[in-house]
């Protein structure tokens, strides 16, 4: 019988994103979940990691500055004004 060695805490913290992304192989998933079930510190770590993702997700994406937006609009308008541009497409 093959004895599957348990993950250490130090190994587990490297696998949290793999776990959350559903990328762990079935045997590793079992080892991950068994470790979490018996380890308060790693349970806390996993909770904090998930909380971090939520908080990052609550950040508002940076708005385009008015200057950058008007420069980009200028790109669009000069493209649009090009003679010979085929509006209907080919």
């Amino acid at each position: 019988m093959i004895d599957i060695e348990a993950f250490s805490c130090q190994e587990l913290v490297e696998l949290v994103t793999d776990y959350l992304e559903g990328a762990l192989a079935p045997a590793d998933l079992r080892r991950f979940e068994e470790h979490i079930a018996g380890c308060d510190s790693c349970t806390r770590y996993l909770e904090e990691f998930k909380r971090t993702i939520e908080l990052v997700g609550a950040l508002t994406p940076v708005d385009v500055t008015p200057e950058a937006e008007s420069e980009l609009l200028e790109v669009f308008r000069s493209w649009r004004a090009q003679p010979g541009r085929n509006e209907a497409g080919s």
Partner: protein
Amino acid sequence: MEQTDAELVAALRAGDDETYRRIVREWNSSLVRVAQIFVPTRSLAEEAVQETWLRVLGALDRFEGRSSLKTWVFRILVNTAKTRAQREGRVLPFSALHDPSRIPEASVDPERFLADDHDRHPGGWSSPPPELPEDRLIAAETREVIAKAIDALPATQRAVISLRDVEGWSSEEVRNALDLSEVNQRVLLHRARSKVRQSLEDYLA
């Protein structure tokens, strides 16, 4: 009011300002973040984004819809930013983007774990994560800490966490836009998230 890619392309071809402005507003911060993987400053990144739009508009008639419009635009951006970086003699962070595992990086300071040969708990926490008080986690200053932690990341990690966790892209969208393998996308995302979590701990504990 989601428009399909075909509708967006048709509106752009017809010269519709509003459609263009909406796309710019929605994608610009991501475009700049991705360009910053390749060029060193924000203003160079913004120039690369402008050049990208010039190329995108010029090539609109050739957009075939084999990828999404977004993926196509980001691919053009990556090429544009790479070319600009080469022109300026910058060494591209290819290894950082395409083989991040070559440079190992611990998610948590190794000092916080017991040695591998510890008799009772090898590799266990010696300095476990402290509790982070929820009332402070949701405070406005904490958002600042998170934003700063993201800004301080290496550009590739910053781009991946911004696209995935701030902008809410799927892993597939990020992989396609940046031409990353599944594994490398995950490595970069994990490193970024680990550092942001650590910065919260440093700030709150």
